[in-house]
């Protein structure tokens, strides 16, 4: 279907089903129950899942295929957001022109940064991208204030021109009148499910983004990118010019990041410089690695995983912990709360850092590799003969 193999089609359909039914899947616990804190089916959180999914899928096209580790991809995210908000300020609150401009501007930006940075490889490339991103961040904060509104961040004001704004155009972000914040809540007994317009628009765009990424992975172009990662010397001595290949991958992944930035602004018409900081670039690296760099599904898994646990962990506090460990004797309960306390609430970053280290140390292939290992282990127990060879040669994507 759509020029994909059966396996890839199934993969795409699974992703489609998961995103389509996400409001159900992410809200498995009845409202008001003790487990409701593990629900994640809120519109803004679900939007973040898919938007960061797009960001990570795009990053994976560069890092996963070519092995070029960019530490500056947040710059494109920020550029996308700024462009989108400018469209809201100049035209109207319709998200379509905003998203289109976000992709175009971040693409152009990526051409410039990529052209310069890709003249070096390895750690030099990482540091060049880092330097560019930090420079963009510093500029957005200071000199470019007329464009970025400095520390306050760019937002839409009532006295903005908004040339395409009709008398009864919506004043919130919308797609030809469909408001992004519009939410239909379905109450089924004690359960409650939110269906949000903005989420479904982002989800649809993510599916297209994933589809395109699968096509790229399976194309001759994708093969060349993998070849760049594997052996540049052989590339050159096979009559292939690696520079345009890597630049194309860089620009494509920059455009994905810009798209994500544009969508972020479309859900909430704000853009701030902190979106460009290198810690934000680090986050997308983390998502990709955690899920499994170079695999099709990994980045989405990683983005979902990090955003989900960020939300859950940040919400848990000591009161909740005391409830959990209430079955223990008093002293032990306090001790357990004391032990767990540093990792929850504001300590989420600590948990994330540890998790990240563990993944890089023990599971360089990320969650996807973990799944494969478990699958191989189960199969191995059945057939008593673990065929590690096959699990290596067929990266299950």
């Amino acid at each position, binding site marked *: 279907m759509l*020029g994909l193999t059966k396996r890839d089609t199934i993969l795409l359909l699974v992703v489609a089903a998961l995103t389509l039914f996400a409001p159900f899947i992410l809200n498995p616990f009845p409202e008001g129950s003790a487990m409701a804190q593990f629900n994640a089916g809120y519109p803004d959180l679900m939007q973040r899942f898919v938007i960061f999914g797009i960001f990570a899928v795009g990053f994976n096209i560069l890092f996963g295929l070519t092995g070029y580790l960019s530490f500056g991809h947040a710059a494109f995210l920020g550029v996308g957001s700024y462009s989108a908000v400018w469209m809201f300020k100049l035209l109207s609150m319709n998200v379509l022109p905003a998203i289109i401009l976000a992709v175009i501007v971040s693409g152009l930006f990526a051409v410039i940064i990529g052209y310069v940075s890709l003249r070096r490889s390895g750690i030099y490339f990482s540091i060049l991208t880092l330097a560019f991103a930090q420079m963009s961040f510093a500029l957005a904060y200071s000199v470019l204030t007329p464009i970025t509104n400095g520390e306050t961040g760019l937002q839409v004001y009532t006295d903005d021109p908004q040339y395409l704004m009709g008398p009864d155009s919506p004043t919130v972000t919308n797609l030809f009148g469909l408001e992004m914040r519009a939410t239909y809540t379905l109450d089924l007994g004690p359960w409650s499910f939110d269906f949000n317009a903005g989420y479904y628009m982002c989800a649809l765009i993510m599916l297209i983004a994933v589809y395109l990424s699968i096509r790229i992975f*399976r194309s001759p172009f994708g093969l060349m990118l993998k070849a760049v990662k594997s052996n540049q010397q052989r590339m050159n001595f096979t*009559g292939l010019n690696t520079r345009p290949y890597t630049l194309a991958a860089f620009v494509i992944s920059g455009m994905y990041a810009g798209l994500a930035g544009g969508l972020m602004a479309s859900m909430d018409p704000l853009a701030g410089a902190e979106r460009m900081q290198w810690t934000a670039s680090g986050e997308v690296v983390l998502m990709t690695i955690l899920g499994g760099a170079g695999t099709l599904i990994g980045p989405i898994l990683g983005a979902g995983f990090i955003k989900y646990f960020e939300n859950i962990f940040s919400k848990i506090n000591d009161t909740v912990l005391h409830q959990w460990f209430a079955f223990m004797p008093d002293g032990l309960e306090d001790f357990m709360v004391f032990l767990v306390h540093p990792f929850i609430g504001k300590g989420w970053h600590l948990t994330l850092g540890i998790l990240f280290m563990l993944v890089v140390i023990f599971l360089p292939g990320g969650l996807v590799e973990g799944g494969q290992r478990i699958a191989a282990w189960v199969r191995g127990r059945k057939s008593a003969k673990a065929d590690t060879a096959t699990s290596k040669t067929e990266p299950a994507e």
Partner: protein
Amino acid sequence: MSILEVKGVNKRFGGLQALGDVNLSVAENTVHAIIGPNGAGKSTLLNCLVGKLIPDTGSVMFDGQSVLGRAPYEINQMGISRVFQTPEIFGDLTVMENMMIPCFAKRDGAFEMNALTSIRSQRDVLEQAEAMLADMNMIDKREMLAASLSRGDKRRLEIGMCLSQQPRLLLLDEPTAGMARADTNNTIDLLKQIKDERDITIAIIEHDMHVVFSLAERITVLAQGTPLVEDTPENIKGHPKVREAYLGESA
């Protein structure tokens, strides 16, 4: 008719004269071996031919065109393929994918933005790659990762990859270095077969005299960066100057 003309090439690294006034002419459709003791400048010369190094002076003409100042990929597209001392292949890719890449490079040139076509739809490339795998006797290994091949198979794959570009000149840099006897003999047989079946010129740098004398039609002896003699294998064998340069240093 010579396909490769090297004239008056000099190359210095700091105080070291790596190549001194090298003249070399390789005739079309022959096997030309370049031998010489360690440090004679063989690899430097090879690197000058493929664009990895640029000589300080002199000219390198391939088929009437200068290769100097061109990037390695451009020189390759002119029709020169190179086999490395340690096989340079795409270790993370399968054998079949390895073989497809040069086929794409031959068909589409140095860069082609075909990001939305599927590899499976590229029938011509698939057939070409499979045919070459069959020629190399590797069809049963097509789904293996190239990195997991044996040394001999890696070499075979690399030669196959170079051949599938249909180069006019194949450069081999010590193709049997570090190989067991059996693998060496297999490689000699493979190269003989290539020489017999294809319209191709082969230039080979080699240490192993067994390999050189089984394959070469002309031999150039390089010593201290300068060609000593150039002759047929028979004449080279008994040449006193060669014995002196060679045995004097390496024996």
